[in-house]
């Protein structure tokens, strides 16, 4: 990143220096604005109920207590079921992993076929798939419920995976199509003459070239599906619900005093995976989004 800033001319004179510090100040304010809720959540999740009642909202915990976390993880009551967030967290993993893998893979295959094996009407097919990414998710609830019923997948994890794969295809296809458009057709021609078939060209040439867009698509799909509430609440039956629905149920299950520390810990548990994915792969995400705009 330092190489990026060095490309700018160095600041000169007092005015420029003031402007630079003003810029930093504004950036710091924005960062604080976005980070404060997170800080508040983390701080609260480590406090005891006693401290929450007596202390101020923004103060840091006097002593770190992991009680709220462990309670949220395996003892909190989600409705009548008091096994904590853990089973629902695993539900989410079971939903997200196959959904992300399948929707990414099919999106890549779609993008490859739409750009490198252009058939009559390829543009119309692409336009229709693209249209899918503008569909509000509420619109598909009823037809999808009917479809899942007919397929016998209603209320199952498999059904929810299908919903996420189908809904995500519009986005993944768009990502891969736009990326593959920039890969020269000559590569496919050369490979055809060399004797590679449709799937060999895909696995041996296109996929190895797709790392940047793969990362973008995986992050995008992971975040979308992990954070999904609507489909999870609509299509998953009680025990198969994802962590987002469980979080809602946990917070709304009020018996006696509100345990803010447990709520916050549960919210952190529900939000951590996407946070981790961003921290680990965010660098590639930015690179992938801008890939092709500047040839390296």
């Amino acid at each position, binding site marked *: 990143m330092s190489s990026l800033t060095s490309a700018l001319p160095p600041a000169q004179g007092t005015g420029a220096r003031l402007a630079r510090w003003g810029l930093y100040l504004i950036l710091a304010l924005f960062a604080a604005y976005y980070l404060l809720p997170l800080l508040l959540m983390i701080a609260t999740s480590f406090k005891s109920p006693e401290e929450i009642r007596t202390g101020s909202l923004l103060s840091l915990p006097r002593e770190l207590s992991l009680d709220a976390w462990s309670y949220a993880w395996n003892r909190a009551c989600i409705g009548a079921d008091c096994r904590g967030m853990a089973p629902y967290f695993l539900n989410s993993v079971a939903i997200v992993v196959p959904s992300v893998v399948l929707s990414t893979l099919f999106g890549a295959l779609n993008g490859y076929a739409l750009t490198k094996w252009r058939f009559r009407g390829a543009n119309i097919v692409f336009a229709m798939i693209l249209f899918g990414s503008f569909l509000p998710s509420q619109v598909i609830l009823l037809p999808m419920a009917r479809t899942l019923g007919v397929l016998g997948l209603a209320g199952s994890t498999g059904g929810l995976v299908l919903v996420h794969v189908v809904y995500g295809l519009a986005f993944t296809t768009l990502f891969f199509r736009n990326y593959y458009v920039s890969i020269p057709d000559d590569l496919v021609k050369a*490979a055809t003459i*060399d004797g590679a078939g449709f799937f060999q060209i895909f696995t041996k040439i296109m996929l190895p070239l797709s790392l940047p867009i793969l990362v973008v698509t995986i992050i995008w799909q992971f975040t979308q599906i992990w954070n999904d509430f609507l489909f999870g609440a609509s299509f998953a039956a009680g025990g198969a619900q994802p962590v987002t629905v469980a979080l809602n149920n946990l917070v709304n299950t009020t018996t006696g005093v509100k345990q803010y520390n447990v709520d916050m810990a549960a919210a952190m548990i529900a939000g951590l995976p996407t946070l981790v994915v961003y921290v680990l792969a965010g660098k590639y995400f930015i690179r992938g989004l801008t890939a092709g705009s500047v040839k390296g």
Partner: protein
Amino acid sequence: MATLSINNVRKQYGAVEVLKGIDLTLADGEFLVLLGPSGCGKSTLLNMIAGLETISAGEIRIDQRVVNGVHPKDRDIAMVFQSYALYPNMTVARNIGFSLEMRGQSKAERDTAVRRVAKLLQIEHLLDRKPAQLSGGQRQRVAMGRALVRDPKIFLFDEPLSNLDAKLRVDMRTEIKKLHQRLGTTVVYVTHDQIEAMTLASRIAIMKEGVVQQFAPPQEVYERPANMYVAGFIGSPTMNFVRGTLSAEGDRLGVSVGRDRGLFLPLPETPDQAPDQAGHWLGQEVILGIRPEAVTCHDPAAAAGNPALARVSCRVDVLEPTGADTITYIQLNGQEVVARIKPSDRVTEGATADFMIDMARANLFDPKTEQRI
């Protein structure tokens, strides 16, 4: 090693006809250059030979076998692309060996074949690199290696040198020619560069708007162009086209050019030698095509022994020395003509000097059809 015959091949995209009946036949080991401006259909024809484009009508045979419906990998051809089309994710060695890998050859067989080709092209030290780490010339060699490794019946080249800088282009051109001499494989080579066509080809097919204008050895294309398009496309500076009238003066047949058709340039043929043509064309408008090197400074010694050399007196407009020769723009009785003269010939801009035109090397064209007479 193979023959190639293209019979009345057509290509249509919807209502647009891109190739309008191409007929070309190649003997074993020939080097065919498809030459023409962009959009003339030369690359389309090459892709059809490769099997990357379908054939709308007609047939293509490789070694007498009709390949119209044959998959590219089964045609026993190899292709070098303008963009090189190296697989960016693979090393040079794997790039070269990829076609063998796809054909199920063992690692050991592949390694041997790759080493042999790498040695031939002097790229052994690059085998472990990725294409992104290579220079343009090195990529070009790898692309050729990928084509060579399979020992195909026909090599197809699609403007392989146009992405290289000028000096490297000349070097690689020579290397392609050497390779062809050494391997003797039939080659089809697409280019828009007339020098590449002249230097490499055993025969050139000049194309324009989906039609082959002339299919002949380079020297014949140069000396006896089939029409004014071919004449203008080949040669630099381009051939001079001078409007004139075919006429007879005494027993000599010639072309009268310039103001009032006042300048008579005698042709080497007499009316008796070409009676049919002369009878029809006598008194008609013709276009006289003269290569710049056929117009030189007057040399009494050479002119004396050669009746085909017509002596003219012209005003010199501009001199453009190129080192080897001087390109000279002169006024031939009111029409501008380009001459290629020796630097040692002392002429000055604005002055009048004596030139001679080698009418034995002149071409006559029909001004209406632009075809050679």
